């Protein structure tokens, strides 16, 4: 299982990459693997929306399961990955790259301190 060390993680299996004031959010390799073949992904927020930490930002469906994706931090949505609608399987093949879901402009960088690092997340999913 792939858990890149340059990202932060949530208990609900989202990752966030922070560059400057921008956070890029997706779901982890563990999450895509548990869902198995993903057939649908939809971002449920729009550019310009302000979302509070823990708000639902996307829905991902496989044949047998559905998962809501929650934002790990509060902020303003500045970009949405439009490509996932037609190619949701990318979430299976490249969860940390092409399958990012949204980019958010951080409001309170201190929220990042509450997230897990790679080691802590790896320990969680091993349980």
């Amino acid at each position, binding site marked *: 299982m792939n858990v890149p060390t340059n990202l932060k993680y949530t208990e609900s299996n989202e990752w966030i990459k922070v560059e400057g004031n921008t956070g890029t959010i997706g779901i982890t390799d563990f999450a895509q693997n548990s869902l198995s073949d993903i057939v*649908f992904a939809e971002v449920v927020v729009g550019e310009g929306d302000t979302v509070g930490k823990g708000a639902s930002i996307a829905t991902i469906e496989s*044949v047998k399961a559905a998962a809501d994706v929650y934002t790990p931090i509060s902020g303003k949505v500045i970009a949405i990955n439009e490509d996932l609608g037609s190619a949701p399987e990318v979430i299976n093949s490249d969860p940390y790259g092409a399958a990012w879901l949204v980019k958010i402009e951080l409001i309170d960088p201190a929220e990042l301190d509450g997230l897990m690092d790679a080691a802590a997340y790896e320990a969680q999913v091993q349980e």
Partner: protein
Amino acid sequence: MGEPQLCELSVPGRHGLRYPAPDVPLSPLPEALLREDLPMPELSELDVVRHYTRLSQLNHSIDTGFYPLGSCTMKYNPKINEETARLPGFAALHPLQPVETAQGALVLMYNLQEWLKEIGGFAAVTLQPAAGAHGELTGVLIMRAYHHSRGDSQRDKILIPDSAHGTNPATSAMSGMRVVELKSDARGNVDLEALRLECDHTLAGLMLTNPNTLGLFDENVLEVIRLVHEAGGLVYGDGANMNALLGVVRPGDLGIDVLHYNLHKTFSTPHGGGGPGSGPVGVAAHLADFLPAPLVTILDPGDEDLPPLYGLVNPPKSIGRVKSFHGHFGMAVRAYTYIAMHGAEGLRRIAEHAVLNANYLKARLQDVYHVPYNRVCMHEFVAEGRWEDAPEVHALDIAKRLMDYKFHPPTNYFPLIVHEALMIEPTESESKETLDAFVDAMLKIAEEAHTQPELLKEAPHHTPIGRVDEVKAAKELVLCCGVSAND
């Protein structure tokens, strides 16, 4: 190649039905409002009959084989039900006729209301809900209306045990309620400690499936209900598992406030490949005024010369209509026929033998298929479809392999609290010979799982089709003849 689709069978110029020529003068058609094209198939009657008959032969059904599907109560559907529901006096009766011309139907509905009250221990019953989930919605809307009528509109929390039926959370959400899941204790009962923690002034109620989806009767049921009532909440009973309780115990006597029946499970109306169902709701006296409108009642008791007059009445604080007309009357006719043929003793015999059959299967299978929460079960039980020494085999593989032995698989992967769940409900209809043959197949499969696991992984082998590509179905989304919905 399987059976062609209708659009492929269609041949221009063919007719399946001829109508008589008009016996009235023709009127001009409204040209601007006419459709340009009517792209429907063109087939002869034999084309149609053969097509659907061939399709029917691809199905497993109760009439052709054992169907031990947990929580679905796939009992025999007596043929007389189909005759009575089709009597022209019922089948050709318009729902909006004057009640004076529909007394036979109204008497039947009234009696069925009364019988369901008696069987469940309730003060009033509505026949309007169309299915189990629809009955749940009706019940939770009644609970909501009750709390609001008492100025208790802050009560918006519904507790749902993790051993409850899958529809319960969606039903609560549809009724504007918050859902809090309650875990089960080590014996498969509602965890009383967890329940106590949730009993506060926001509690609207608890949705209790008893026996639960493990097939277990809650050992603390009276205490569970007492705690909820003490906190000002109501208890909803999911009556999908009533087949275990007929003549054994009345949910209303236990203190359950509202419950839906499934006529298509307990009372033998056919499942029809997914419906129609019928989900009457029974309520205790304090909820009777909230039932959907209308109910069947006696408008005039009559006298020595005149029979009583049956008609419709709207309860004073009704939640309103949940469906057009009077519910699934045709299903009510079937259930009425079934109950009338059983009487009180016959109903008790149903429950006793449903429970006997389930415990017999459990006793014969439990040494090979691990049964967690293993105590005397009710009408069904849940076993695990996995073995440590056959790690590649899953419940799904056992289910698929059973089809090769001409049995419908049990419900699998539900309830979620058992790993690799196989939920088995034999019903009272099945003979010892059938149960023994099923056990033989299950034991043979357990052996195969250890000796030839690939036989299971690739099963079924002897069905009209093999395992399907569900990912392709969901991605390409072909929902109509020759058209992809994903273009």
